[in-house]
């Protein structure tokens, strides 16, 4: 999704492994926005996203000596960020319910102004459903990978995605005429 570039990446990473603060900062500058974007799309608040941004780069700076370049540096940083974001969701799980549950409130949903923008609709999904939609449909993680990160089954991830899309379809007024 994001076109990021780290000029002279191999040399920068090699210097970062030795603890060079300039190289570590270059990595931060190259990937801070996509990390923040991923975090903010998954979590509800800017505060959570900023915390995840800091936690992610703290981990990245400390463990970059373990990164040997077998995959893209962004893939590695993203796995740290998504893991942190999901950890944050687990911590905040008391809020993990849809704000508008169609099954429980059909009368309200029928009369509700259905057409809302996509960002608002995403924000109304449960934390888990929103995370699955973002990680699968945007970041390109497989259900296997999402299940692994969440500590759940593949079918859990699939059903969360299907349920989320059904809700988005309704909330966005995209249902097919009967």
């Amino acid at each position: 999704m994001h076109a990021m570039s780290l000029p002279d990446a191999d040399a920068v990473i090699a210097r970062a492994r030795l603890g060079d603060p300039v190289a570590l900062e270059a990595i931060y500058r190259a990937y801070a926005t996509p990390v923040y974007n991923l975090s903010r799309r998954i979590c509800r608040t800017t505060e959570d996203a900023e915390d995840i941004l800091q936690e992610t780069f703290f981990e990245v700076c400390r463990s970059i000596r373990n990164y040997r370049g077998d995959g893209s540096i962004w893939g590695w940083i993203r796995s740290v960020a998504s893991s942190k974001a999901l950890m944050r969701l687990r911590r905040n799980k008391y809020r993990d319910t849809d704000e508008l549950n169609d099954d429980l409130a059909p009368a309200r949903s029928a009369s509700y102004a259905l057409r809302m923008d996509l960002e608002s609709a995403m924000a109304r999904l449960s934390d888990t459903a929103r995370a699955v939609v973002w990680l699968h449909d945007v970041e390109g993680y497989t259900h296997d990978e999402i299940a692994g990160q969440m500590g759940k089954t593949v079918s859990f991830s699939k059903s969360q995605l299907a349920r989320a899309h059904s809700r988005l379809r309704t909330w966005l007024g995209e249902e097919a005429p009967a």
Partner: protein
Amino acid sequence: MTAHLTMEQLLALRDDDRSEPGLAAGRDHFTTCRRCQSELERLHQRTARLRALPPLAPATDEFPAVHQRITVARQRRDRAAASIGLAAAATLVLTLIGRDLVHPRRLDAEQMLQNEVSQSQRLEQELRRWNPAERVIDGYTAIVVIQLENKIAELDGQLAAAANSKHAAPIENEIKLWQQRVGLMNALVEVHLTKANNVGL
């Protein structure tokens, strides 16, 4: 099949996921059902719109805070490494020289302590031989390694504090700390050797 495709089936079609049950029959229905074709098209469009959402940028620069935390963590680790060497040396001296001067029950305890220290040193050597800095590990494993290293650093801090304390701590406490360290070192070696990303933390 006359029923329209479920969202699960539409997603399976979109993602070419052949593990979805009933998808073969669903495909037959799909080829002739304009409603399901429209549903799939809307699903594609919704996904494209999600991917096209503008990236959100952080309002604050977190790097100064990250850099400060890294600096503090390095200083703490260096101090702990220096102190742990002293603690281990002090323990060995106590064990080797002082064993005849203490009570027989204390001799047993010191033998246990010596065993734990030796075991911890053996695991450190094993880890050095493995040379993790030269190995490739994935992001999840790296996180587990960091968690274990953090816990070991915490323990080293406690051991160093005990070694530097003016008041000698009971030897049982020291044995307990070293036993915990051996357990964590075992887990760390295990993670590096097997790339396991779940060690029951």
